[in-house]
């Protein structure tokens, strides 16, 4: 069976012509200058300060890793800027804010992954054999990173909190809300009925550890 899979995948390959075309397109794309946006002078002044602060923060994060000789790990994580962590508390330590527990998912999670994205967004993935739910929390009002256009976008309310639900045919694939100065997103694959999504959101909002 593994041999059969290898036989199938062996058919997927690039010809010399494909490589030449892809390389030429990649070189052209990489050489394309980044479009510059001109900001007013006052904004530029603050931008310079922010850039200095960002460089200092990046150096503070990168220096201990480089000193510890973790160059390969650092390069690999730079590729995605995602760091897998063993527990919720380790994730909270990495991102610097509390990460809520999710106790009312529409399915019973058998596995949970904790990932810090750029050290700025906490991502918790819950999974069973056929369902996945991803909770994200960050300072951005919408930390989902999901820019898909969904046919149904509904503004709903859970308690006093406005929740944007996106999906199709009464189901919710993505819910986004703000609470306590943070943005939250909860995505479902496959999408779940609206009431199930909202009860998961309500449970997160009611959890004191979440904010």
């Amino acid at each position, binding site marked *: *069976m*593994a041999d*059969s*899979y*290898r*036989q*199938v*995948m062996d*058919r*997927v*390959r*690039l010809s010399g012509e*494909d*490589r030449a075309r*892809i*390389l030429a*397109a*990649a*070189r052209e*794309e*990489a050489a394309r200058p980044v479009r510059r946006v001109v900001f007013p002078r006052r904004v530029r002044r603050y931008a310079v300060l922010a850039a200095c602060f960002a460089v200092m923060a990046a150096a503070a994060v990168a220096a201990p890793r480089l000193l510890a000789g973790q*160059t*390969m*790990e650092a*390069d*690999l*994580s*730079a*590729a*995605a800027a*995602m*760091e*897998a962590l*063993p527990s919720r508390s380790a994730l909270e330590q990495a991102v610097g804010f509390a990460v809520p527990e999710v106790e009312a998912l529409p399915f019973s999670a058998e*596995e949970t*992954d904790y*990932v810090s994205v750029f050290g700025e967004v906490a991502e918790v993935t819950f*999974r069973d*054999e*056929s369902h*996945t739910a991803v909770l994200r929390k960050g300072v951005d009002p919408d930390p989902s*990173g*999901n*820019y*898909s*256009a969904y046919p149904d976008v509904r503004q709903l309310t859970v308690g006093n909190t406005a929740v944007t639900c996106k999906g199709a045919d009464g189901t919710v694939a993505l819910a986004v809300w703000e609470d306590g100065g943070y943005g939250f997103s909860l995505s479902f694959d496959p999408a779940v009925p609206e009431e199930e999504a909202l009860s998961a959101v309500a449970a997160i909002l009611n959890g004191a550890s979440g904010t």
Partner: protein
Amino acid sequence: MESVLSGRWGLGTALYALLARVLPAASDGAMEREDASARAERLLTQYGDAVLRLAYSYLHNREDAEEVVQDTLVQLLKTDPELQGPDHEKAWLLRVAGNLAKNRLRSDRIRMADELNEELAAEEREDLRFVWEAVRSLPTAYREVIHLFYYEGYPTAQIAKILGKNESTVRSCLTRGRAQLRTILKEAYDFG
């Protein structure tokens, strides 16, 4: 006048010294860009097929998979990362390609044609088509692990690094993926 001339000469000398510093640096910069470009070509030759296959295992479409290969090279050229040795180079490329392919899956920008399936059907290779359909039907989390383990031959610890997951999660995905394949294929084949 003399002082003015010496002042001009002083300015001219300073400009010359500045240009002398800047010009070699500019040509060094051109050399570095050429190196990065040459590295992209070498890595495409060495690992282009591996990157294409991983992308295809996510997207099931040749055109989408080729775009992921191209975008991976763009990332390589733009970020010019320091990569230590062939293993690190390949792992970096696969990680970037995997993330780009998953982004594409999330954005619903994928095409529907599955050329591999069509090719196997045209050749009446139902045995291979059966296996491809079974792997294709797995959840993404299982499929990526199955591909890296069985096709690329990576151990679970390395797969965990490439995918940014815990090793225990990778082992669990591998076990579940195998079990699901056995069920789909009704134990006609052993994926062990």
